């Protein structure tokens, strides 16, 4: 009986250990995945902002050229 008890206990411990390890593992992978997704989203947001600034700068360049052309009307 005590032998059986210790076996059952061992199985429970192993199962619990496996469940915990599995949970931690899955959580880790999930975290990694979401973190990677979040970083990509952050990068996308940064690139969008960058493109907006790039276009705005292009506007200043056009303004300078426009004034330069006005400066030489003939």
């Amino acid at each position: 009986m005590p032998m059986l008890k210790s076996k059952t206990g061992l199985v429970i411990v192993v199962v619990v250990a496996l469940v915990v390890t599995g949970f931690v593992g899955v959580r880790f992978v999930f975290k990694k995945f979401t973190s990677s997704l979040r970083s990509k989203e952050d990068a996308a947001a940064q690139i969008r902002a960058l493109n907006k600034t790039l276009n705005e700068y292009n506007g200043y360049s056009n303004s300078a050229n426009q004034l330069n052309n006005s400066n030489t009307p003939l």
Partner: protein
Amino acid sequence: MKKLFFEIVAPIFLCVVVLFSVVGDVAFAGNIPSGGSGNGSAGGTLAWQKQILMAIADVAIKKLDEAENAVQMNTVISSSTKRAIIASLQRIEDRLVTYKTQIAQATTLAEIQTLNQQVGQYIQAQKNGIINAFKTGFAEIGAAAIAKAKNFEAQLKATLALLKVVCPQELTTINNIEVQLATLASNIVALNVAIQGQNGAVISQKINEINTLIQHLGANIKTVQTSCQINL
């Protein structure tokens, strides 16, 4: 900036000078009597010269109008600077309109010569005002461009830091972009120097150089973005 005057004035007055050099023998040496009436056989030459000068003035007026419209539509220059530039150009335009009326009413070649001198002197007298108005315009655009370029520089640095984590397979391109960032920084300094020097042509050139670099950097970022499947 000197270009403005010389390019407004030069075509008109060079034409006038050429005109008088080419036909001068006929128009002045030959045909203007000492009394200065300048009529008779010079009648045809007078009419022809009046026609040419009016056409030249018309072209100049049209170009000045176009320049005024372009300045008016400029989205970066402040209203007060726009007003100053447009007013300075309008004064020349008004003077040319008067000049045209005077030319139309002129009855002798000597009269036309005097009118040419007068309009030339007027434009010369307006020279500094126009140059300064344009300088202010270029300085305003330059300052706005510097602020925007610095903004771009900061955003790019932050983007690169993220991309190094998200997209390590494109590290070579990212490193190249970092090298170009250093060039951007030195170009911003050069633009600032050009603004201090109040040289419109150089300011414009530096703004364009930075624009080319920024567009290039944008293209490189696009390469990294595509390679790492970052959806915008």
